[in-house]
């Protein structure tokens, strides 16, 4: 067990005061996560700290924050692994601050929605007990990107999002590739029109920060480069739209 100092960013637009850091001493075990420490502070030292969390197991993506300078999930970051006696928690960068560590995801989700993150296929209305057949290699083309939990860490780490409000960000672009390359999706041209823009996929400079911070191994930078390659005509012939089959009994 060791004692660590947790510095928590405090800002409440309602009280009109400047942002500040409050400091709290907490005892941490080897298994104590930053979220555990923050919830201990909230329960025993200052209940007014605002933060968002839910599952505590890196599945919901709610507790993203900048911990010691890097966007991380608080529930997925152990105090010990940070190797420091001082832990600074800030709200995710590139997201407007609602209060303290809670940030507003409205713009982030709007960008995600603008990618039409669902299968577009006219045949879906005529499924009638049939199903799309996909080979394992077709599934592997998009499976990795479908593990995204929309935690916003990649968006917070991206240097392009930091300066370009119109850039969709790594999460949205990786999701675009996820649906584009899915053999059940037929809206290839419509999808490409959305991102083939100077504030779109071409704005990415492959800094790779998104993939470094992703807690689920989604590798958004890979998706974005593959999306560009697709636009450049490097892999267009690799997509064959899946057909509907009736399962044999």
């Amino acid at each position: 067990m060791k004692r660590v100092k947790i510095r928590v960013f405090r800002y409440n637009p309602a009280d009109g005061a400047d942002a500040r850091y409050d400091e709290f001493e907490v005892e941490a075990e080897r298994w104590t996560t930053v979220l555990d420490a923050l919830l201990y502070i909230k329960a025993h030292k200052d209940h007014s700290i605002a933060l968002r969390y839910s599952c505590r197991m890196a599945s919901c993506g709610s507790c993203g924050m900048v911990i010691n300078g890097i966007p991380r999930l608080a529930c997925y970051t152990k105090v010990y692994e940070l190797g420091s006696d001082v832990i600074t928690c800030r709200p995710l960068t590139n997201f407007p601050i609602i209060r303290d560590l809670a940030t507003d995801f409205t713009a982030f989700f709007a960008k995600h929605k603008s990618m039409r993150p669902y299968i577009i296929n006219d045949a879906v209305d005529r499924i009638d007990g049939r199903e799309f057949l996909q080979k394992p290699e077709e599934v592997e083309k998009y499976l990795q990107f479908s593990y995204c939990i929309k935690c916003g860490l990649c968006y917070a780490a991206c240097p392009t999002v930091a300066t370009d409000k119109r850039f969709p960000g790594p999460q949205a672009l990786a999701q675009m590739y996820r649906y584009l390359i899915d053999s059940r999706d037929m809206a290839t041209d419509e999808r490409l029109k959305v991102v083939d823009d100077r504030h779109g996929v071409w704005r990415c400079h492959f800094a790779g920060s998104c993939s470094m911070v992703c807690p689920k191994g989604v590798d958004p930078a890979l998706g974005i480069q593959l999306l560009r390659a697709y636009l450049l005509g490097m892999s267009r012939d690799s997509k064959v739209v899946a057909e509907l089959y009736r399962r044999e009994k």
Partner: protein
Amino acid sequence: MKENREGVKGWLNPTRYGANRFAYWLQRLTGLGLLIYFIAHVIETSNIVYGKSAWEKMLAVTQTNEGHIVLMVVIGMCVFHAANGVRLYIAEHGKGIGRPGRPEYPYKPTSLGLGMKACIWVSVALAALAMMYGAYVLFGEA
């Protein structure tokens, strides 16, 4: 709500996110440096319109030790920017960045794999070698 965009200061720290972020930072820095050099170079060569003596006076500035150091840095910036640019060109064509698969813990992004890292350090090494050769030629003349 408080706007919390990181802005240009988000570009300034190259140490937070590994080799690719470092390469991104260096690419920006060298690009900016080459732009400044290009403008200075245009101003420098435009001195020729003021006659031979003005031209030679300006040329003499580049023959000093300080002038040689500036040229060495320009050589380094040029080589790194070009070599790293080729890496980025290859990456955006979907080459050398791995393939999507089933992520397994501990997650290691394939797009930031050994191949890309090696290309970054080769770009840095080429820039360093070019600077050393430049120093040999420039200071060898003096």
